[in-house]
């Protein structure tokens, strides 16, 4: 197995944990979670959302930590190390996350741009802001002018990539570790400030009642459970290959189980803080009926609440301009901390193929810029990619379970998790979750989202491969990727592992790759 360059490690367990939290907490926690909670009736949604943290997200985080720590390779090499025939699965997981990275750079650019504009608005109130005012009734026009300008989303997309790549360029300790040491405590502090401000607003209790008043009957509706499972799957970053990538840089005696629980619970803590910062604000500023409409407004590319309604709402509260800047700063930090883990995933894969870190970053950075351009310029393309690779992540989660089942779940647990260095030992429940629960959850989620597409999103052309939200576009793009990866499976194995062990099943018991 190739190991051309000396590998860095995180300087401490706390550094690894901060990086894991930075990976897990992204824009989805701040702009998707409050909307999905509201759309699904508040408190009843929170129960399945919390439950599935232990039935999907944390078990997959444990698998990722275990594979990364044992194999010391990115997604392609890690899957290939587990079983040579599964190398293509690592390629799918890696490309699926990179497919998200291409448009996530664009989202990061939007966050940077709104942070910049809201800062300009504090420094020079009423001054000229490109694209019209950020406040009041002009927010929709401001957003449309920004997106339709073309050059602005591209410029901020480039700034996002350059910033993220620069952090990765500096390496694991000086780049990823230092950035997360600053970003994550700052992110939590800002979320706590925003929450305190929101819940102390006059009229905020309406929002708190909405968020926590439990109607037990709603728990009988299957939609609540499927939405809770989907949110848990997307939000924690489990099955994306990002924790696997960070686990490559773990110390040999670092724990896996407690780290996975901390990453999962930390992610859910940040989501709950964001919901408590946003929903009470909406209910404090607007009458209940209007608040409900706004808080559930998806808007273009799911940006309705964040970029259109939040500026309108903050205008109504004392110190709103400062809080608006802090809100977008929080969003930018969340976006950046996740983006750097995505760029590192791509860079790690290129390093496994023999490139230096610096050349790998150059390749990944240029690729992200070029392949993100269509999403920066076309909201329809952005939405298509969000749909295809977002659903693809569910398949990625299943591929982890399939690979561990093929390797032997009991053997995986004994060799890679319950080693002497682990602080907490996993029971046999882990075997049951990986073998049965995750495949069943995958089938339920994929059936649910495809049924949504067939019945509601695009009932007439659900089969069409070139529609934004069709089942056909998912199957076409996944199928194309899988076909290419299957054709390249052997050449990739040769590049990664040499020609001698192409047919090998993976490491034997006790092997240290």
């Amino acid at each position, binding site marked *: 197995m190739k190991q051309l360059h000396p590998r860095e490690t995180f300087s401490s367990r706390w550094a690894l944990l901060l990086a894991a939290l930075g990976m897990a907490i992204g824009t989805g926690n701040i702009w998707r979670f409050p909307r999905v909670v509201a759309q699904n009736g508040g408190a009843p949604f929170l129960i399945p959302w919390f439950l599935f943290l232990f039935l999907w997200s944390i078990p997959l985080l444990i698998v990722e930590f275990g594979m990364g720590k044992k194999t010391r390779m990115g997604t392609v090499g890690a899957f290939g190390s587990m079983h040579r025939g599964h190398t293509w699965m690592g390629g799918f997981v890696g490309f699926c996350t990179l497919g998200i990275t291409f448009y996530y750079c664009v989202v990061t650019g939007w966050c940077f741009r709104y942070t910049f504009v809201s800062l300009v608005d504090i420094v020079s109130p009423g001054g000229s802001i490109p694209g019209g005012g950020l406040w009041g009734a002009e927010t929709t026009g401001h957003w449309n002018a920004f997106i339709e300008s073309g050059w602005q989303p591209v410029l901020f997309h480039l700034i996002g990539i350059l910033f993220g790549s620069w952090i990765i360029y500096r390496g694991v300790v000086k780049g990823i570790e230092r950035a997360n040491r600053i970003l994550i405590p700052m992110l939590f502090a800002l979320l706590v400030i925003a929450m305190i401000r929101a819940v102390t607003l006059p009229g905020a209790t309406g929002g708190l009642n909405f968020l*926590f*008043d*439990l109607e037990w009957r709603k728990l009988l509706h299957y939609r609540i459970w499927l939405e809770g499972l989907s949110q848990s799957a997307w939000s924690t970053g489990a099955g994306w290959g990002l924790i696997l990538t960070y686990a490559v840089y773990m110390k040999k005696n670092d724990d896996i189980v407690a780290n996975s629980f901390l990453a999962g619970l930390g992610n859910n803590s940040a989501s709950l803080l964001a919901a408590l910062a946003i929903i009470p604000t909406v209910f404090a500023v607007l009458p209940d009926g209007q608040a409900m409409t706004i808080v559930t407004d998806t808007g273009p590319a799911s940006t309705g609440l964040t970029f259109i309604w939040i500026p309108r709402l903050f205008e109504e509260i004392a110190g709103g301009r400062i809080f608006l800047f802090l809100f977008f700063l929080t969003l930018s930090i969340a976006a950046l901390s996740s983006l750097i883990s995505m760029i590192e995933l791509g860079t790690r894969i290129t390093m496994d193929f023999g490139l230096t870190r610096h050349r790998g970053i150059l390749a990944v950075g240029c690729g992200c810029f070029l392949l993100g351009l269509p999403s920066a310029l076309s909201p329809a393309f952005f939405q298509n990619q969000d749909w295809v690779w977002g659903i693809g992540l569910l398949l990625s989660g299943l591929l982890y379970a399939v690979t561990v089942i093929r390797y032997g779940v009991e053997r995986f647990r004994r060799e890679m998790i319950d080693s002497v260095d682990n*602080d907490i030992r996993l029971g046999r429940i882990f075997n049951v979750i990986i073998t049965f629960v995750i495949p069943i959850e995958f089938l339920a989620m994929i059936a649910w989202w495809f049924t949504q597409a067939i019945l509601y999103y695009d009932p007439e052309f659900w089969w069409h491969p070139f529609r934004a939200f069709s089942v056909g576009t998912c199957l076409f793009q996944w199928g194309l990727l899988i076909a290419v990866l299957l054709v390249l499976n052997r050449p990739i194995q040769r590049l990664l592992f040499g020609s001698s062990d192409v047919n090998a099943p993976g490491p034997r018991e006790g092997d240290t790759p």
Partner: protein
Amino acid sequence: MTAGAILMMIVICGLVWGGFLAFLGLVWRFEKRKRQIRNGDHPS
């Protein structure tokens, strides 16, 4: 706020934030014990 909402808020926030803080404390203890073992001043 209604009594039900207050109860639910305590339960959900307690489980999520309490769980997170409990694991933080646990990891801090594990690390402290490992440090003591490394330095040779732990009974085990």
